[in-house]
């Protein structure tokens, strides 16, 4: 199992952030480096990439607040 975490240096301070969209459903197969989600921090969009290939297990809902370094999914 490989964790999918929000990079700790993705933004500064305690800004409000969330996953604005998951591009795969829970349980979907994803390829390594596939764009699996869009993260929105204020007016900046980031892409979240799958670190490895496998089955995506989402841990956070769309629009739920997230913080830097948080585990938001894992890939089996």
């Amino acid at each position, binding site marked *: 199992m490989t964790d999918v975490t929000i*990079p700790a240096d993705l933004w500064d301070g305690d800004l409000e952030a969330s996953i604005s969209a998951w591009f795969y459903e829970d349980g979907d197969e994803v390829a390594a480096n596939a764009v699996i989600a*869009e993260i929105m*921090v204020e007016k900046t969009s980031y892409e979240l990439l799958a670190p490895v290939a496998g089955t995506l297990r989402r841990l956070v809902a769309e629009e739920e607040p997230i913080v830097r370094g948080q585990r938001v999914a894992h890939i089996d």
Partner: protein
Amino acid sequence: MEDRLAAWLAAQSDAAIDDLDMAGDTTMLEDALDGRIVSGRMRIWRGPQRLVVSPRLARLPGFAVAAEYSARDGWPVAVRLSGGTTVVHRPGILNVSRVHIAEGGINAEQGYRSLCAGIITALNRIGVAADIGTVAGSHCDGRHNIRWNDRKLAGTSAAIRQRNGRTACIAHANIAVTGDIAEDIAAIEAFERRLGLEPVYDPGAHVTVEAAQRYGIINPP
């Protein structure tokens, strides 16, 4: 006025003025990720009259219908790469995009700061003293607005992408140089209401570069 500001921006930052419209930003970001351009590349461009929204707004359930009504009112809707809410493109609005590239990690702050610094320098050259900050009551508000006397001259947004260990940030500014901001806001509010949002924007929170410059001439420091 628009041409003059574009020329100042181009001269000081070695930026290209092009007619590639929004597609130019996608190309510039791809070129940055593939190593075909260097960090700091800037482009200055204009778009036809339309509203431009973030992907997040475009995913709302009522988007297609709201966009159709907006187009009937003369404001077709396009979707950009970056975040935020709704902005306007039209004659009198100048767009500036700047790419920032880094090996490994990056955050957007550097991209915003570099973009805004270049624009503020150009505005100073035409007599408009500007700074950066939020503007209460403005549409698509954010921490990196370019302001004159606490009124919004330009909004900014950014998108960050990664590929093959390289990270690129494209930061974009939407500068109101001339024109009727009250009309812009009416179009934005009509569209966002149809999306089910409850926008309340104040035209007085905004100002055009032309109006700010005129004020400076009439009321010199």
